[in-house]
């Protein structure tokens, strides 16, 4: 029975070991302890999608997972996907299409649309909307986001 637990896992390719309070959410740990503030905290109950991160290759809510549950797993954040160049074309398309205004939802949105691009590279506009339905954007009205994603999917398929 623990209230602090030594936890070892990988963040963006780097192995770390930390003593972590068991009640700390993964997103709080990433931001407060690792300084990875690209992952945002919005609603803290799984609705808004701002805290989306990738764990063992799958997108999850960083606010609905305890940091100690990352033990032995591979966590990737917007910083990792950005630095590796994996989503450079998506970032470029979001910029060109004005698919962000305040940018608060953008990291979570990028993780989610990259997940779609990997799972369903031929996704229709309807399927893009479906996939981002759990990521709230209060600025753009989504139209420009769907435009940007559609552009990238087409370019990747052709490219």
């Amino acid at each position: 029975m623990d209230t602090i637990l030594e936890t070892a896992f990988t963040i963006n390719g780097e192995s770390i070991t930390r003593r972590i309070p068991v009640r700390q959410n993964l997103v709080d740990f990433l931001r407060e302890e690792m300084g990875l503030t690209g992952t945002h905290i919005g609603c803290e109950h799984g609705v808004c999608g701002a805290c989306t991160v990738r764990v063992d290759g799958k997108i999850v809510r960083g606010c609905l997972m305890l940091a100690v549950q990352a033990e032995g797993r591979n966590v990737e954040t917007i910083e990792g996907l950005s630095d590796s160049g994996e989503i450079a074309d998506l970032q470029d398309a979001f910029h060109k299409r004005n698919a962000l205004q305040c940018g608060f939802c953008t990291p979570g949105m990028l993780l989610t649309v990259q997940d779609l691009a990997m799972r369903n590279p031929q996704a229709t506009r309807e399927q893009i909307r479906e996939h981002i339905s759990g990521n709230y954007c209060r600025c753009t009205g989504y139209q420009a986001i769907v435009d940007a994603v559609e552009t990238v999917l087409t370019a990747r398929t052709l490219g």
Partner: protein
Amino acid sequence: MKAPPFAYARARHLSDVFELLDRHGDGAKLLAGGQSLMPALNMRLSAPQVLIDISRLHEHAYIKVENGHVHIGALTTHAQISDSAEIRKYLPLLADAAQHIAHPAIRNSGTFGGSLAMADPAAEWPACCVTLDAQIGLASKAGRRRVAARDFFEGLYATAMKPNEVLTDVVIPIPGADYRHAFLELARRRGDYAIVGVAALAKVSGSALNELRLTYLGINEKPLVATKTSQVFVFKGFSEEALEEAQNVLASELDPSADLYSAAATKLHLAQVLTARAMKQLFA
């Protein structure tokens, strides 16, 4: 907000879980996918003394087809069900229902057994399990037992599970080739909580309907089987006249509870609309 303080124990085996449940009783909560429990903790609606993390019991995440039944382990995620070719082939009702469960990131974590044990009245899996006549497997130190889904759900977030029991698996008989299904749901936004939904399973030969089960979600505290409404279609087949009669019977059979967003009359109306759509789909 942040979760209140709690102690944490990671279970390695089912026997660890029994041990911890025995020791901590009502003060303990099981953490499976966490997609309902974690929000409740963060909003401080729940304050367990101990969280028993069962998410590493990977042997309880499986989909197996055996002797005319599909066996689903409690820790199988919504995404695994949604992506399963076997589920699409043998239990397409579940495959369709999965598309209505929240969003991709939630479906990657949330579990089948967690949803059943939670027994949220707006959840998809409870209504599907009742319609498909599923048997729910429970285990405790004292042994194992099975409960029919129709007896498992007792009320709002209330089930037949005892405090020392763990939901381990679900066994679902595969409907024959002459069965058709429909799963329909209305929500304010895609992936949001259901206002009303219906899980329908019918045995059809030609224009005749030999069996029909309509189970509604989001109406009352637990999944509601509309037996009398189903009987109208079984006796009369599907016609405009039968539909009108069935919708009237449905109005006497359902007694929807209003929620924050929808009045009882709205819910009844929407249930009638979904019934018509479901019947059209079954006879398409």
